[in-house]
């Protein structure tokens, strides 16, 4: 009995599917126009979700340039999506070298504290070659290296002595060293950075291929050297702090925040007049921004899908009327109401799914066009593809039920006579 039930269900399903495809194929233009609505709705969801994921992957990997258990203290927020009083931020005191030094003295918990600033892009020249003028130039103290995830591959890092006496030394990134010294070690060689002479004392290990390539295209000079050569006016420094381990991360952050407030004489009760940025907080901020986009696109898509659903319902009602006699025939040879209902709901779902599948494919292609355009790795959001198709089925069921119910409840006698 159970076996027979299963055969019955399977046979019914197969028959209904075949009929649905038949019916859709019989009116190609009509079906195509109808499923266009679903296609657009699903496309808009998938294209945005794919594009967001492409950007999110990129942002997450570029944000993690901060080393493990590290955070940064800055005057300005790193990025913001509204809610920042920029005038207030602009009135904040600059973070100075002296503040950084004081913090390094006072804070006991951090593993290392570095002070840094970033200068405009520069060009490196040597007797052997020259780089493009896109080298990122950092001014650093020794404490920055762990927080920045910089590992010395050859030579040495910037030392306290370099900083104290503003020596003209430079540490080159792996890619940059490769470019300007294609043969042999650059250690001890002279380079011209924006026209001024430096001696190479170290080369960084490459950060690997998974990072975007400019992270190896860096030149690091002692902070003090950089400040005196590139100018200190209107320049606020950043402080990089690395906690000893994950478990002390929070308490280190609290200690540093408190110390910083004392150093900057922030009145009690006032909010911090500086920003503390960690990988986590940046990713959280990005996600908060994308959530707004997600909610927006969900709203727009649901309106599109409701419109599409009404279109489907309309065409299904037409289809039921056109096929009244077919329904009568099926009822006469023994189809139950349930069979007719299944047939028409499946037809509506098939219509939606066809539109949905094309929408998903186009959406993924469209979203990855962003990836191509921004030269980022492509992604295939499997979860959203599945969600998209599920939504299609739901639309099909919601808007196919009434026409199917109507079809199932036609009077067999009348429908057999229907002309």
């Amino acid at each position, binding site marked *: 009995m159970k076996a*027979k039930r299963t055969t019955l269900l399977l*046979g019914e399903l197969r028959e209904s599917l075949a009929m649905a495809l038949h019916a859709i194929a019989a009116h190609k233009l009509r079906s195509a126009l109808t499923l266009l609505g679903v296609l657009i709705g699903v496309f808009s969801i998938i294209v945005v979700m794919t594009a967001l994921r492409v950007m999110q992957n990129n942002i997450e990997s570029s944000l993690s340039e901060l080393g493990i258990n590290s955070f940064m203290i800055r005057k300005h927020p790193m990025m913001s999506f509204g809610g920042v009083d920029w005038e207030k931020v602009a009135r904040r005191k600059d973070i100075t070298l002296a503040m950084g030094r004081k913090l390094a003295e006072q804070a006991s918990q951090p593993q290392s504290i570095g002070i840094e600033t970033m200068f405009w892009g520069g060009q490196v020249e040597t007797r052997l070659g020259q780089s493009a003028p896109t080298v990122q130039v950092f001014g650093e103290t020794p404490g920055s290296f762990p927080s920045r995830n910089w590992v010395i591959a050859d030579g040495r890092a910037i030392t306290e002595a370099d900083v104290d006496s503003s020596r003209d030394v430079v540490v080159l990134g792996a890619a940059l060293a490769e470019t300007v010294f294609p043969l042999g070690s650059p250690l001890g060689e002279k380079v011209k950075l924006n026209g001024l002479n430096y001696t190479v004392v170290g080369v960084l290990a490459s950060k690997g291929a998974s990072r975007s390539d400019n992270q190896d295209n860096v030149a690091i000079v002692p902070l003090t050297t950089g400040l005196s050569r590139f100018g200190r006016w209107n320049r606020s420094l950043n402080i990089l702090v690395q906690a000893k381990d994950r478990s002390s991360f929070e308490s280190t952050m609290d200690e540093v925040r408190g110390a910083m407030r004392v150093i900057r004489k922030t009145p009690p009760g006032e909010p911090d007049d500086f920003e503390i940025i960690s990988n986590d907080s940046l990713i959280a901020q990005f996600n908060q921004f994308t959530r707004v986009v997600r909610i927006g696109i969900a709203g727009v898509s649901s309106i599109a899908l409701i419109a599409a659903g009404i279109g489907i319902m309309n065409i299904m009602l037409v289809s039921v009327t056109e096929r009244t006699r*077919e329904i009568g025939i099926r009822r*006469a*040879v023994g189809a*139950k*109401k349930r069979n007719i209902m299944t047939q028409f709901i499946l037809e509506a779902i098939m219509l939606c799914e066809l539109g949905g599948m094309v929408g998903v494919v186009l959406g993924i292609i469209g979203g990855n066009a962003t990836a191509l355009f921004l030269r980022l790795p492509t992604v295939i959001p499997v979860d959203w593809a599945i969600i998209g198709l599920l939504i299609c089925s739901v639309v099909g069921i919601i808007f196919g039920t009434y026409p199917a119910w109507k079809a199932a409840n036609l009077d067999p006698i009348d429908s057999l006579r229907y002309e």
Partner: protein
Amino acid sequence: MSLIRLEKITRRYQMGGETIHALREVSLTIARGEYVAIMGPSGSGKSTLMNLIGCLDTPTSGSYHLNGADVSDMDDNELAEVRNREIGFVFQTFNLLARSNALHNVELPLIYAGIDTDERRRVALEAIESVGLTDRMHHKPNELSGGQRQRVAVARALVNKPSILLADEPTGNLDSRTGEEIMALFEQLSRSGNTIIVVTHEEDIARHARRILRIRDGLIASDEVQGRS
């Protein structure tokens, strides 16, 4: 035991506030293997009678036993099952699925009976062969002549081995020669033991049957058994 037993069947319709008595307390029994013609002018109630016998409709009052089961108070699902199992319809306008080929049309009742694919194919082929259309089974209805279409319909009606073959003006859309062919097919089916009920208003067609029921104004006007001519 009789195959069909109608007792005091009444069927009323409401039409625009007016009550129409299509059938008034009709009682009737038909035994297995009979070949019956139901005749009557339009509006006499013969279509209503046919719909009731075919389980497409239920009576307002009275009882209907088909093959021992009381059909008159079955619900929609049970009626669909009875139609599927016990009744084979042949219509004036053939009523084939236009987009499906002959074979698939014949398979249709088996699908709703839940027969699996292989068995279904085999039984449908047998039925198509029995009406002599094996070479046309992959054609769609609009590629078949009227007579061929009606034979597909007969094959579909017989494919589930029903108790009754119920034909409503089966020759109404056919020329007289093809009509005779179909009636000859019915004759042959009757001889091989099928119960056949033909609804018609043509004397020529009714004469093929062994028993002629005449309906007038919702009542049975006459019920005569004729000898073989």
